[in-house]
Each structure stands twice: as structure tokens, then as C-alpha cells.
């Protein structure tokens, strides 16, 4: 599948009423106050929070802004038409330094963006090297959803490799808590490791590069049967963002 022609079907996870209630409580707002900010009636908000009415897409988008919710709270499913330079601008929108100059990118949940990228056969190498930044920067993203999706699409080797790199960056930074958390996600994928050889979103690799990578890749890449030479030393951008 080319970067410019993505037709993945992503399970749409909508925001729940309970999540709305938690966000309101965090702001110490009454339903009346929250309804005013959200532009709905208190009665309607009450029904939504109780689950007797669904959270509409419009209300979810308003709530993301009003409650200043993090990108990890964004509903899934908005990126199914992502293509062309969409990965770059969506990463820029999330704050990835390498594409920060691209303003106004599609607002995506980081877990969905990572999944879509991992499920792409041909990514710009600069996008591929940005991928470990996502789990490093958003360790609280929806891992359960992500792991199910990558297994369904046989992308677990790619994901484990990317997360392992992110963990290695955390370790190098002295952030053992984050490194441990990311390491546990990798462990969950160990039993479903695929034996087939794959690339890291680079199906167009020439035969010469494939031969060369088999003997020049890192042990981590070899373990996950990936033909890639991406390594921790290439991930300066992940360190840079921690101090910005």
C-alpha cells in the first residue's frame, strides 16, 4: 500500500459519556457550567454522561478543546484517509520537532497515527525515524487498542521494534520508569513475534540493500526480523523534545 493511497479501516472508538464526566470533574465544573462551555443544554449533557445518548463527533471535538484534553483522548478513526504528506503534518501537529514547521496538520490520536504508519508499506525515511518518538512522548496512549490492531494486521514486529527503540532512548535518558513501561509493552508482543522477514515500512528496498541490511542491522532489528538500520543513535530528535 503506498503512502498516498491508504484505505485502512480503523475501528472508530468514540469518546464515552463516562470520559466526559471524568473530564468535567477534573475541572470541578457543575453540569450547568460544563454545558455552557460545551454549547449544549444541561439536560442533554446529563443524558450523554449517563450513557443514554452517544457522544456526537461534534461534541467530542468541542470537549477536547474545552477540557484541554491531551491528544491521547482523541477518538480513533479520523486518520483513515491519511495520505501524501499527511503523516508529516500529523506528526507536526502532535509536536514532533522534525515537522513542527508544518502547521495545521490533521489532529490524530497518537496510537492511531502510529498504527497507520506501521501499516504502511512505503514511508518516507524521515517519517519512519519519527515513529519511536510517538510511544516515547505518549506513553499513556491506548496500548490495548494498538496491540489488537497491529496483531490483526501482522504488524507486531514493526511495532515491537519501534517501541523497543523508544525504551532504549528512555533508558539512555535515565528515565527507568518510562523505559520499564515501554519494555513491558514489548514483552507483550514477544509471544506473537512473526518469523517472516519484513521491512520497516520500506517495501521498495533494493535487493542489494536487503542483502546489506541482513549483515549490518542491529541485534534488535534481527530479533524482530526487520530489514532496517534504524538505531538509537539516529533518534536525536526524541531527546531534543524532552527539553523543549
Amino acid at each position, binding site marked *: 500500500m503506498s503512502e498516498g493511497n491508504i484505505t485502512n479501516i480503523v475501528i472508530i472508538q468514540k469518546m464515552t459519556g463516562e470520559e466526559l464526566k471524568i473530564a468535567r470533574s477534573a475541572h470541578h465544573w457543575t453540569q450547568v457550567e460544563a454545558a455552557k462551555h460545551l454549547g449544549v443544554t444541561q439536560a442533554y449533557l446529563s443524558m450523554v454522561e449517563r450513557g443514554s445518548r452517544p457522544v456526537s463527533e461534534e461534541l467530542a471535538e468541542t470537549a477536547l478543546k474545552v477540557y484541554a484534553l491531551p491528544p491521547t483522548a482523541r477518538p480513533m478513526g479520523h486518520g483513515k484517509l491519511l495520505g501524501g504528506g499527511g503523516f508529516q503534518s500529523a506528526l507536526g501537529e502532535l509536536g514532533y520537532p522534525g515537522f*513542527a514547521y508544518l502547521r495545521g496538520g490533521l489532529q490524530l490520536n497518537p496510537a492511531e497515527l502510529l498504527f497507520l504508519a506501521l501499516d504502511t508499506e512505503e514511508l518516507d525515511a524521515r517519517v519512519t525515524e519519527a515513529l519511536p518518538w510517538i510511544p516515547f512522548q505518549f506513553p499513556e496512549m491506548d496500548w490495548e487498542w494498538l496491540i489488537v490492531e497491529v496483531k490483526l494486521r501482522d504488524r507486531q514486529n514493526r511495532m515491537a521494534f519501534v517501541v523497543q527503540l523508544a525504551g532504549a532512548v528512555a533508558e539512555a535518558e535515565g528515565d527507568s520508569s518510562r523505559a520499564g513501561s515501554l519494555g513491558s509493552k514489548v514483552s507483550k508482543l514477544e509471544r506473537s513475534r512473526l518469523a517472516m522477514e519484513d521491512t520497516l515500512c520500506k517495501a521498495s528496498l533494493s535487493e542489494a540493500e536487503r542483502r546489506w541490511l541482513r549483515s549490518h542491522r542491529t541485534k534488535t532489528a534481527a530479533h524482530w526480523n526487520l530489514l532496517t538500520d534504524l538505531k538509537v543513535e539516529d533518534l536525536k530528535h526524541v531527546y531534543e523534545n524532552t527539553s523543549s
Partner: protein
Amino acid sequence: MSTKTHPPEPWHSFFHDLDDAADTVVRLDCIGGFVVTQMYGLERSTADIDVIEIAPRTASDRLMDLALQGRPLHKKHRIYLDRVAVASIPENYEDRLVEMFPGAYRYLRLMALDPYDIALSKLERNNQKDRDDVRFLAHSIPLDLSVLEERYKAELRWQLGRPDREDLTMRLWLEMLHE
């Protein structure tokens, strides 16, 4: 090759601000992804502008103070100059420089390395980005691979810390580009 009169945004505004800070003609010798995209037409962008030389040196400190990572122009435009100190470049590269966007700025002269020199500047690092850029140059210019190999032997190999290793990299590239 690019025939545009100036780079797109945000690069144009970035260089315009840099130009405003200069008070004499300043030459920036550029390599890397910025040149490959703006001069040789690859359709992707990069946040940093790799420069190997800013001349004269009296102007260099002032401009870098404004435009390196974390400095005011980076904060304003979200792109920055990156002074590349370690890349090995073919020895006579200056004779082959080409000006990008001539006349676009009052004092700034953005100079691009010749495509063979750009390619060879990536040999030691040789990561996926570099190989993709070299492959693009090889097909779009197109590169004469015998010239690439000859220039490697005559102008670059003797400068390298591990020439035996880079001989293997050059062989990989030639195989890759012949496919």
C-alpha cells in the same frame, strides 16, 4: 533542478530574516535534505538546513546566533541552520558550487553542492534517509555512476577514517543504483 526565484515558506521568511541581520555578502554552503528538495526537486521537506561553511567568518557567528536550533529564528519559523562539522566532503567541492535562488536576498548567497558531492557527503553515515536521497539524485539528475565512483576515489577516500568500510558502502550503493 529548481527554477524558482525563492524557496517556499517558511524557508523564504527564515532566510529573509537572516538576510536582514547581515550587513555584508554572506555565503552559505548547503548540503543535505534541504538542497535535495529545494535544488534537485525531491518532494519532501526537512526542518534543518545543513551548512558546511558560512563565509566570511565575521558574519558567521552573528548569523548562527540567530538561526541555530533553539535560537530566535528557530523559535519563530520552526526551522533552523545546522552547522555540519563532521561530514567528509570531496576536496574540490567549492569549485562546483551552484547558487540557489540568485537575487532572492540582498546579502545571502545560498550555495548548493553539486549532486555528486551531495551524494558523497552522505557516504559515511549511510542511513536509510541518505540512501533514499542518493537513489533520488541518481535517477533524477541522473548521476553518472562512473563519475561518482571516480570522485569518491580521487577526492574523498583519502579523507575518510575507515576507507575500507566506505569502499564496501560505495559498492553497496553502486549495486543498489544499478538495480
